[in-house]
């Protein structure tokens, strides 16, 4: 066999791809990083919050140079009905200091920055280049990629597919057994412009501190959830919607965002803000249920391409899972190339790393959460029930005495039409997942 053009080809310069390229290039391998956009991150979108702790080893003191908008020091979880809102609000000064926790950032900035580290490490970044096929040998092992450029084949010892949700490469390699619309949610988001001082005042933050609000309810008849994040002088408002429901309701996602923005608890926060951008993207929601095989001879799959995004109700984390899986894939590729064995066995280090770390551990722990959070009961019955309970607890109805909480709970449960059995079961699932 002739020598391949390079040791490693990484497809897709998102968070997964750039981290993979950094690791492989730093280990001394020759690396080409292929990206279809005009620059890394140019077309990439997400909600807005990254958790970069995983970069500690890769880019020490990353917080001194990362292109962040604000550090998340306030995290709220909101439960909405049509007219009510119950918010659990947490804030921590510690999250506003090194080593920080989460941050809001723009993807074009974040991805571009990570890719510049890959280039600095010696990886060759080629943009405006789309991978359109896999090269394979007689035995089916992946030996490289075909791009849309003339003279566009590139051979490699290992291909790391980081091409995002609905991965063309993983599907082409037959690694997905079945993909189904019900495994995806549609994320849509509006970026709104608002002066920094106004944001600081409305969200009660200062300097570079910011807020992450996760919203349950507020998406009308379509099951889903919402979010509201603060950039420096922008807000990101979005919803995550279950696809089959969206189709059945024949509603346009913009209308659902518009509805959320009109909610009495949200409207004052976004009032007067000017629409800058609207974008939409699929999210692999089903976690473990939908994950493909991630290793095959000559190829590894990382990030959203491997459905590693954690989308479990109040958690929407994909970038950190992508960065970590990209790094682990590259570590395994380095081992394999150094051993001269890029068969599935040679690349087995990848699966091991995923299983031993938060990447798969979190997914296992939260495997039932997505289904629970998007279930009809949690979506349409519990918010009203809980909000009504709280409303009655705090409602002063003199001269009547205050009722007992247990009684309110029972009455409201019955009023909402929730069976005690289901409530207990869901509570148990929730407790096992989130507890």
């Amino acid at each position, binding site marked *: 066999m002739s020598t391949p053009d390079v040791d490693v080809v990484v497809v897709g310069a998102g968070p997964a791809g750039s981290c993979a390229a950094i690791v492989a290039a730093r280990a001394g391998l020759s690396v*080409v990083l292929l990206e279809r956009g*005009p*620059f890394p991150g*140019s077309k990439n979108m997400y909600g807005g919050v990254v958790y970069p702790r995983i970069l500690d080893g890769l880019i020490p003191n990353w917080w001194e140079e990362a292109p962040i908008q604000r550090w998340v020091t306030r995290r709220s979880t909101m439960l909405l009905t049509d007219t009510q809102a119950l918010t659990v609000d947490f804030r921590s000064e510690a999250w506003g200091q090194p080593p920080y926790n989460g941050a809001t950032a723009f993807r*074009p900035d974040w991805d*571009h920055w990570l890719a510049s580290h890959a280039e600095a490490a010696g990886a*060759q*970044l*080629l943009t405006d*280049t789309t991978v359109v096929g896999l090269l394979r040998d007689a035995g089916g092992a992946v030996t490289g990629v075909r*791009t849309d*450029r*003339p*003279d*566009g*084949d*590139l051979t490699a010892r290992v291909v790391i597919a980081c091409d995002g949700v609905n991965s063309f490469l993983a599907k082409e390699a037959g690694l997905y057994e079945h993909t189904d619309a019900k495994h995806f949610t549609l994320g849509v988001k509006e970026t709104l412009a608002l002066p920094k001082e106004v944001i600081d005042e409305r969200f009660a933050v200062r300097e570079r501190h910011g807020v992450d609000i996760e919203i349950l309810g507020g998406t009308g008849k379509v099951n889903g959830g919402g979010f509201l994040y603060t950039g420096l002088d922008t807000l990101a408002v979005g919803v995550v919607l279950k696809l089959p429901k969206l189709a059945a309701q024949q509603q346009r996602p913009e209308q659902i965002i518009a509805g959320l923005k009109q909610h009495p608890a949200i409207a004052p926060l976004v009032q007067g803000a000017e629409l800058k951008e609207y974008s939409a993207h699929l999210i692999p929601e089903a976690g473990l249920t939908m994950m493909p095989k991630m290793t095959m001879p000559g190829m590894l799959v990382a990030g959203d391409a491997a459905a590693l995004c954690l989308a479990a109700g109040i958690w929407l984390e994909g970038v950190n899972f992508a960065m970590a899986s990209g790094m682990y894939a590259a570590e395994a590729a380095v081992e394999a190339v150094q051993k001269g064995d890029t068969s599935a066995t040679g690349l087995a280090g990848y699966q091991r790393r995923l299983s031993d770390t938060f990447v798969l551990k979190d997914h296992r722990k939260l495997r039932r959460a997505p289904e629970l959070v998007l279930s009809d009961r949690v979506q349409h019955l519990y918010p009203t029930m809980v909000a009504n309970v709280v409303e009655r607890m705090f409602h002063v109805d003199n001269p009547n005495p205050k009722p007992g909480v247990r009684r309110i709970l029972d009455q409201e449960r019955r009023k909402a039409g929730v069976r005690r059995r289901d409530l207990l079961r869901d509570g148990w699932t929730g407790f096992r997942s989130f507890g």
Partner: protein
Amino acid sequence: MSIVACLKWVSHPGEPHDERFAGMSPADQSALEFALRQAALLGTGVTAITVGPSGADKVLRDALACGATRAIRIEAPTTAAGTDVATAIADHIADAEWVWCGDYSLDRGAGSVPAFIAAHLGAEQALGVIHVDLEADGVRATRRLDGGRRELLGVRSPAVVSVEGATARLRRAGLQSLRTAADTVIEVVPATTPIHRAEFMVRPYRPRARELPAPAGDSPLDRLRLLTDAAAASAARGEMVTLEPADAAARIVQVLTDWGYLPHG
């Protein structure tokens, strides 16, 4: 050095404030394509040249990837005055036989650099060209004139030709040449004469008040009336509505009917 393509690094009109989208304008892409085709015809290479800051290396790498054989960047700020840009280029390509330019640069240009280069080189010029025939001993170029007329020019070297965008579609760089170009060293040279920044006060575009032909009324009062009527008519312009697309379409059909462009009913 005989065939030169002058390429400017310009911001993308849709993303004027984000350098990462910046690159070659469609007009410069056409220019490069003709330079490459002509070089193939004459059996020689193409020198790509740009005047700009280090970010402008991008257009040179793109040119190398497409087949340019040499790349020169003359160090200058993006705001360099057009006359200085032309002088700097002309000084570096004194022996060029064919210079290919875009018709005008997207960001602030007005199509003056190519003619300046021609003046410096004492070369022929064919500017604002919309059709090119390459021949062994020269170029036939069709240039736009007023009123939709065109002029067919026979051009011989040394010459500067500037072309409109999409006169030719730039070839797509091959993967291997893209990889080689990414690693090619770009020659960076200082300008031979000082480069001045063009300093301007910038404000949004507002149309200039137009001078109207004097009204033809008989008495001063009639003339005044004519003038004020014209003003009233123009003030009536400008009904602005925000509509959903479906309603917008319906509204358009409605006004076309009202104005008599579509039959009623």
